[in-house]
């Protein structure tokens, strides 16, 4: 399989050494393995470097507004439950401006597959602190070190009600691929946090970033639960109400 068969609008604008392409490649291979009909797949993204994925993926692809990708995706999924809807967001996108939407989508356990490109920094806007920036880390907006505590994305997703939760990195590409397949086939709100690198804004060489990711712990699947999914529940409701005497 050639990954390029599923891409359009190249060349991309990502920096050399950026992790985004690794995630995109893993996603395309995982999608192939999943057996999902390409005509029934919709990819939705927000704004930021990660948001650009929908400009390159040759599926139905919706590039939305900053932080709101999950809400658009919720509308798409409810409008046509046959669709497999995948949402790709950055850490700032998903957890700062979109944090509210993230927890509520998880709470609903709506059938969406969420891939969070977590490089713990705002890449596109110039390297500012994000909700996953490590304590004391220096960024454009924390020149003296970050005073805030980062989110633990896995804990957050589980607490909010996601029914499949995994963490992986762009070093562990095979594992990432496998996890995306699982998430795609999971019925319910599935979240994969992918620790990735932004060499440009983290000001670390790509090879060093990959080395750091090798040692990230813990990675793996942290939650996998069968639980009635939101859209299914809604469809059941429609069935029961429709048969009710008006």
């Amino acid at each position, binding site marked *: 399989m050639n990954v390029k068969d599923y891409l359009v609008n190249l060349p991309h604008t990502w920096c050399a050494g950026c992790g985004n392409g690794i995630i995109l490649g893993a996603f395309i291979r995982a999608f192939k393995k999943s057996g999902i009909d390409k005509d029934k797949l919709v990819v939705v993204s927000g704004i930021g470097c990660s948001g650009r994925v929908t400009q390159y993926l040759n599926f139905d692809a919706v590039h939305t507004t900053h932080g709101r990708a999950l809400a658009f995706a919720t*509308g*798409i999924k409810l409008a046509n439950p046959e669709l497999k809807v995948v949402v790709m967001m950055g850490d700032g996108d998903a957890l700062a401006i979109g944090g509210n939407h993230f927890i509520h989508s998880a709470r609903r356990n709506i059938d969406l597959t969420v891939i969070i490109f977590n490089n713990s920094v705002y890449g596109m806007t110039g390297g500012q602190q994000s909700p996953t920036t490590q304590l004391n880390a220096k960024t454009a907006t924390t020149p003296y070190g970050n005073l805030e505590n980062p989110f633990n994305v896995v804990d957050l997703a589980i607490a909010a009600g996601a029914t499949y939760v995994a963490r992986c990195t762009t070093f562990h590409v095979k594992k990432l691929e496998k996890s995306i397949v699982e998430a795609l086939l999971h019925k319910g709100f599935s979240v994969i946090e992918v620790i990735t690198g932004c060499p440009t804004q983290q000001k670390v060489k790509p090879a060093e970033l990959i080395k750091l990711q090798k040692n990230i712990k813990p990675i793996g699947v942290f939650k996998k639960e069968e639980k009635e999914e939101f859209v299914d529940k809604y469809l059941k409701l429609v069935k029961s109400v429709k048969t009710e005497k008006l």
Partner: protein
Amino acid sequence: MTRMELVQGNEAVVKAAINAGCRFYAGYPITPSSEIMHLMAKEMPRVGGVFIQMEDEITSIAAAIGASMAGKIAMTATSGPGFSLMQENIGYAAMAEIPVVIVDVMRVGPSTGIPTAPSQGDVMQARYGSHGDYPIIVLSPSDVLDSYVLTAKAFYLAEKYRTPVILLTDEIIGHMRESVNLPNIERVEKNMPILGEGRKLHYTGLANENGFAIYEPEKYERLIKRLFNKIECAKDVISYKIENPDAKTMIFAYGSPYRTAKAVLKIAKNVGIFKAETVFPFPERALKKASKDVEKIIVPEMNVGKIVNEVKRVVGDSCQVVSVTKLAQLVDPQAILKVIE
């Protein structure tokens, strides 16, 4: 078949929406629009449509836009503060050319204001609320029947021109009950390719051609001009009604103050009304024509005087334009009669 029934303004919006084919509602509770949401929660499942209560108004409109892309005729409803939160994605719908209907049951602002009192304070927000340059359609009913007819028109225009359409009602119209004979309305059809048909559609809020970003100023200008032309050159967007066209004094009214204008007409002689049902695009040509022999135009509004500036811009020095304003309550006929003398 039609028959007389007692209907509330907010209820008329729901009835029209469902009859026009709306099958997706996403919203967040807010006074004085909540009845729309309550009824939608009840009715949508019954017609096989989708109702969802979202976590805020930002996501309500986002979900409606998403549903529209995926094939549903979709809407949301709110009031002032929620309307402000929706502005970001109203711009998105304008740029990505996605049909969606937004109902703003106006209340007194700014901020929390007086949540239970009527206002027309959002009229310029409806036109210019999102960032950047974009066209939009804003319709404004004056009674329950209007709420029904113009809601249906909102869906028709949204789908036909692939654009957000705003229906501006207010606390008075939303909560008022009137005995009406609701006409049949035609079901609106989806007029665009939808997600899930294997077309590899690309949507983006970036300036774009077929969903792919463009950066050249010339291309951008062409795009924005096309978006404006789409709405402004359309023949079926602008609707208005003129009463007593030969009168020397004309009341230019939209929304609830039209009711005041009607009351004035019963008392005063030689007074006409220009009732704007479409507020934006502003009915420029029609007003110019209608005001040719008019000496005075009175513009009653439930705000500090907003649309009056549009009227002034259009008629220029050709006649006198007088603003009559009332805040947090309906304009009194006496206030208009006073300036007629």
